[in-house]
């Protein structure tokens, strides 16, 4: 009945157009869903930049928009890493900022009064829509079933593994990088299939964009050569391969070297050597193939092969030699810690201290991918049906990415796309099989049936010779409607659960801008805790323009972005010693840290204290990392052991060790805290311990501001005493006489003593 009506729409060119329009609208809907599901935080709170790194990107973007591209390119930022400063223009990946800068100027050209902040906040969701589309294209290259691409796009749009880094406001490099990653891979596959220079060049172009956007480009730099290498080992060398890879490598390397931060790394560092080696290998193989095609002699061919192997071995040896001799930089710590997993823990505490560099436990996988995680292997298996070049790519990608994501939580990001693709492949295959209207009446018309559902048909051809054991028998199809309905309904149920899961995860886990905290009032209404911005705004308005703020590096970017004040260290942890200096100042006694602060011209010290509110991410909980990092540089001045009691506990109450109680961080966290409680009831709600009634005494710094819920405490570093006493004496004198005498009288600032 109905099919008679829809008949003309499914036939011929009209049919093609109908399907085209249908596909387009579905894609648009998917993109809309992808964007919408990332707006929780904007709706709950406001359009605000999220946790830490995004604040730097936001600040850099504003700088770019105000001062133009060239100033941005050679931007020396003297308001961070005081007194060293940072060559920001040369040490960042400009892709993100430039992208949003372009969008901003385009909109301004249309005289649309849009705020740069809103562009930055909404960039990630916008690009997630594009990512969905890129995934669609990529998957279409993998499978002949049109539904696979759409499924993959849908998965990619709502998979929490990707949402985690791309909710509105998390304005980080990954926001655009994942789109570039997937799209580059799509272009690579396209180039490989067609063997055209144009696609190869396009691939190189987007690879360059990717390099400019994210440090994770190294993943592409190694994955594509690996793919090529595997293909060559499988004896799949072809002119297509040669053309596409050489185009990509030559142009892509040139493009990547245009980024100041990358510079000459592509020819000097080990991360990039695999690409170079494979490039050389391809030349050799190509040469051999060429000669062999000319010279039919068998022995000569074998000779050549031997020659090739020899040359390759020699080249590899040379590479190793160069690395050892230091001409080629060895692996950078971050990258190296991917292989030698114990490395970072011992040698680079800063890297180990970052939570997103921890290994991944299995719940994280399930949390981020839900049912995709078990559809994933099936999809990979499906790729073995017809093992064309692109399927090989999927397999390689799958294995490599799952290894990396197992080692580092944040690399779940690179795994998600391929998981979505593989899962979509198998799921579409299932649906195609179980949704085909016509059932086989007898085994004989299996072929017609096979023709009807597109996916398995070619695989069956491929299955004839050395197929998978699953493919021995010829395809028949599903007989009963019951089995079809049962399977399809079950799948639908799973997919519904998946959607619910994604929404739940996104709204509960990934949508809080850790700048603003939400809490529930007794009556259930939402109460917003805004201490960070309260304190930052106070700094911005009521301290002098160039007041140096010392804090632990986590808050450097936020202070730079929101308080607009110079900082000593920030989240761009390029200088371990400087960070260790701050760590030392925080973890030593006042007498030790005051000279350090003077030498660094510190005016204010900012600590985060969650004791009153029960906010667990505060500095006392991060304190041990400060100690460790400081100990790395001054092993005999700062000792982690001294912060543990004899019984090896980390305590902050009366039982705390002397070193702990003397340390500046401890004092600043708990200074005056007991005055808030009636005697004997002062307690720390994070550590859940009772604090001593006698609070710590501060001599060299004085409390300048404390936010409403005590989360942020700002201290002013006292000037040298103008009578020349040391601060302890001065302070005790102050306390001694009851008269409130103003401490405003200050001598002139003394010069820094080196």
């Amino acid at each position, binding site marked *: 009945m109905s099919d008679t009506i829809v008949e003309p729409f499914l036939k011929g060119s009209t049919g093609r157009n109908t399907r085209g329009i249908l596909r387009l609208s579905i894609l648009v809907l998917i993109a809309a869903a992808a964007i919408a599901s990332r707006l929780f935080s904007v709706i709950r709170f406001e359009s605000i930049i999220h946790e830490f790194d995004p604040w730097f990107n936001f600040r850099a973007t504003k700088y770019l928009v105000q001062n133009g591209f060239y100033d941005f390119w050679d931007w020396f930022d003297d308001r961070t890493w005081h007194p060293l400063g940072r060559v920001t223009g040369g040490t960042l990946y400009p892709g993100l900022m430039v992208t949003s800068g372009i969008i901003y100027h385009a909109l301004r050209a249309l005289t649309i009064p849009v705020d740069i902040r809103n562009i930055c906040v909404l960039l990630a969701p916008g690009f997630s829509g594009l990512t969905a589309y890129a995934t669609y294209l990529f998957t279409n290259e993998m499978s002949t079933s049109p539904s696979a691409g759409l499924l993959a796009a849908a998965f990619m749009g709502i998979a929490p593994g990707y949402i985690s880094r791309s909710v509105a406001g998390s304005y980080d490099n990954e926001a655009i990088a994942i789109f570039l990653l997937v799209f580059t891979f799509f272009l690579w596959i396209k180039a490989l299939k067609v063997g055209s220079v144009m696609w190869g060049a396009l691939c190189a172009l987007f690879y360059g964009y990717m390099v400019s956007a994210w440090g994770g480009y190294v993943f592409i730099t190694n994955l594509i050569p690996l793919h090529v290498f595997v293909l060559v080992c499988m004896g799949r060398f072809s002119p297509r391969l040669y053309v596409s890879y050489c185009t990509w490598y030559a142009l892509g390397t040139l493009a990547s070297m245009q980024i100041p931060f990358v510079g000459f790394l592509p020819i000097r560092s080990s991360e990039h050597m695999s690409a170079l080696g494979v490039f050389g290998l391809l030349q050799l193989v190509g040469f051999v193939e060429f000669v062999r095609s000319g010279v039919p002699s068998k022995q000569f061919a074998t000779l050549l092969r031997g020659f090739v192997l020899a040359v390759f071995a020699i080249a590899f040896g040379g590479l190793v030699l160069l690395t050892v001799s230091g001409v080629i930089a060895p692996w950078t710590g971050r990258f190296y810690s991917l292989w030698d997993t114990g490395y970072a823990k011992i040698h680079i505490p800063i890297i180990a201290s970052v939570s997103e560099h921890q290994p991944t436990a299995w719940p994280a996988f399930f949390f981020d991918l839900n049912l995709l995680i078990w559809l994933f292997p099936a999809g990979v298996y499906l790729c073995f049906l017809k093992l064309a070049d692109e399927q090989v790519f999927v397999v390689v990608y799958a294995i490599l990415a799952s290894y990396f994501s197992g080692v580092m939580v944040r690399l779940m990001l690179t795994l998600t796309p391929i998981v979505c693709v593989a899962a979509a492949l198998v799921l579409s295959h299932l649906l195609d099989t179980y949704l085909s209207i016509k059932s086989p009446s007898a085994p004989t018309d299996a072929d017609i049936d096979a023709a009807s559902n597109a996916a398995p048909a070619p695989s069956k051809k491929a299955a004839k010779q050395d197929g998978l054991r699953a493919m021995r028998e010829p395809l028949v199809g599903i007989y009963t409607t019951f089995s079809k309905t049962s399977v399809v309904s079950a799948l639908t149920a799973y997919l519904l659960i998946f959607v619910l899961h994604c929404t739940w995860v996104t709204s509960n886990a990934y949508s809080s801008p850790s700048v603003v905290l939400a809490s529930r009032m007794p009556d259930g209404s939402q109460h917003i805790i805004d201490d960070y911005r309260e304190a930052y705004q106070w700094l911005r308005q009521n301290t002098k323009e160039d007041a140096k703020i010392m804090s632990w590096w986590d808050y450097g970017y936020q202070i730079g972005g929101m308080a607009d004040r110079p900082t000593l260290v920030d989240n761009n942890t390029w200088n371990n010693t400087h960070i260790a200096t701050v760590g030392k100042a925080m973890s030593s006694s006042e007498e030790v840290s005051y000279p350090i602060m003077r030498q660094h011209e510190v005016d204010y010290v900012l600590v985060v204290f969650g004791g009153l509110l029960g906010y667990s991410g505060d500095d006392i909980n991060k304190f041990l990392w400060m100690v460790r990092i400081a100990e790395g540089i001054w092993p005999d001045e700062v000792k982690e052991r001294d912060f543990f009691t004899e019984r090896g506990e980390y305590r902050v109450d009366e039982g705390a060790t002397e070193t702990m109680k003397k340390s500046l961080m401890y004092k600043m966290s708990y200074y005056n805290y007991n*005055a808030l409680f009636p005697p004997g009831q002062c307690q720390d709600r994070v550590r859940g311990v009772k604090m001593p009634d006698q609070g710590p005494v501060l001599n060299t710094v004085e409390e300048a501001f404390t936010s409403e819920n005590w989360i942020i405490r700002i201290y002013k570093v006292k000037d040298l005493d103008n009578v020349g006493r040391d601060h302890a004496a001065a302070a005790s004198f102050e306390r001694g006489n009851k008269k409130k005498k103003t401490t405003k009288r200050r001598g002139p600032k003394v010069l820094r003593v080196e």
Partner: protein
Amino acid sequence: MRPLAIASAVLSFAATALCVEQGNLTKPLTSRVILPSTFKPPQNFKNANLVHIVSLEKSHPKESINVVIENIATTPQDEYFIPFTARQMETIGGLEVKDRKDPEAGLFEVEAVDFDIESDTQFYRVRLPKPLAPKAQQTLGISYSYLSALHPLPATIAQQDKQYLVYTFSAYAPSAYVTSKQKTEVKFPSTVVPEYTIIPGAKGELESPQKQGSKFTYGSFGEVPAGAVEPVKVRYEFTKPLIHVSRLERDIEVSHWGGNVAFEDRYTMTNRAANLSKQFSRVEFASQQYYNPPSTAVKELKFPLKVGSLDPYFTDVIGNVSTSRFRSNKREANLEIKPRYPVFGGWNYPFRVGYSADLKKYLRKLSSGTGYVLNVPFLEGPKQPEGIEYEFIELRVILPEGAENVKYSTNVPLVTAGISLHQTFMDTQGRTTLTLTAINIVDEYRDRELIVTYDYPFFAILRKPLVIFVTFLGLFAAAWGIGSLDVSIRGKRS
């Protein structure tokens, strides 16, 4: 066309004699009349009786002079001069003169006289509506106030100490003429006045001041020559913030298509109260919160908006401030905002407040042709018991694109007025924008209305949809054209 519009707009308001060019906003501007530098006000008048009231209840002193003037010349006179020192001229705000007998007669025309920059005495010239016949008398009500004229003493106090302010003025009212009888009344916010100048009574008169409650009276004094000064200094308790807005930018955007009018006020606010002698202590502050003692900190600002104001917002440089409450119903629309932190003496807190309202409440279409009349409050700042002073106000009325022949009128003393274009939301030509600036305004001027009339021709209304339509048409055409091109290198397939 436009120059004419500007001209008419400028001429339409009497008080602004000529339009000073924009930009030099550093030194306070006032409208000035140029007179020869050897100027002395002719002694045509005599102040028969004068009452000078200095009210210190708010965070800025407000003085008002009720004087009976008498023409002692032989010809009718209509120019009455009031002298001020140069420093006073800088900070004086909102000088208004009206007839006490019939206040409905409206304000008299007042201009600052400009004759010699070096001279310490400057004049305001009051032009009486009709010349005063010889021997005739008239009662003038002169009122004005000074900005940032109060100073805390001591300059730094502890967090919950009381604050004392010092104000210096003259017991004799400023006058360019002989005054036969006058007295000065000082109204204090409370009876706590630790220090004040005592003037010994001359020949039998009792000494000044006489106190009743929080009101002090100096005088009455007998005949006083022109320009005489009797400095008086008082120090009194005033434990309230001295809110000082150094710059207020107010945008009023009218949208006929949207049918609403959007307000946005950007305040640069500081608290001139006594600074903290020690650093801020959260413990003390938190302990005070329960019983709420008078404090010099700005904890909350209340905006009584016009009824029917919609979706207000309160943000600052780093985003939305969640501590604001908006209560709106049939009778009132109160916006109460709390700064992120209590603003103590010497602290700054710049912020912006915005809201929108239904256009119908503010706009009326003239029966004749395409004219419209817009009636908006000139200033809708917070209403605080201690008052607020605005050093500089820039008001922009953004009219729809293509509005022309703009006229305006308000009884707030303005400094400059101009008309420019403002490009936004895919404007092709830009929106007509009326920019008014005023200085030294105190919050008595809240709710003074600003009336703007303009023409908005029919074509201008249709301009935007047409433009957008044409643009998209062009886009589609271009897309189709490009799509139909075949740029492939290999020859056509057959």
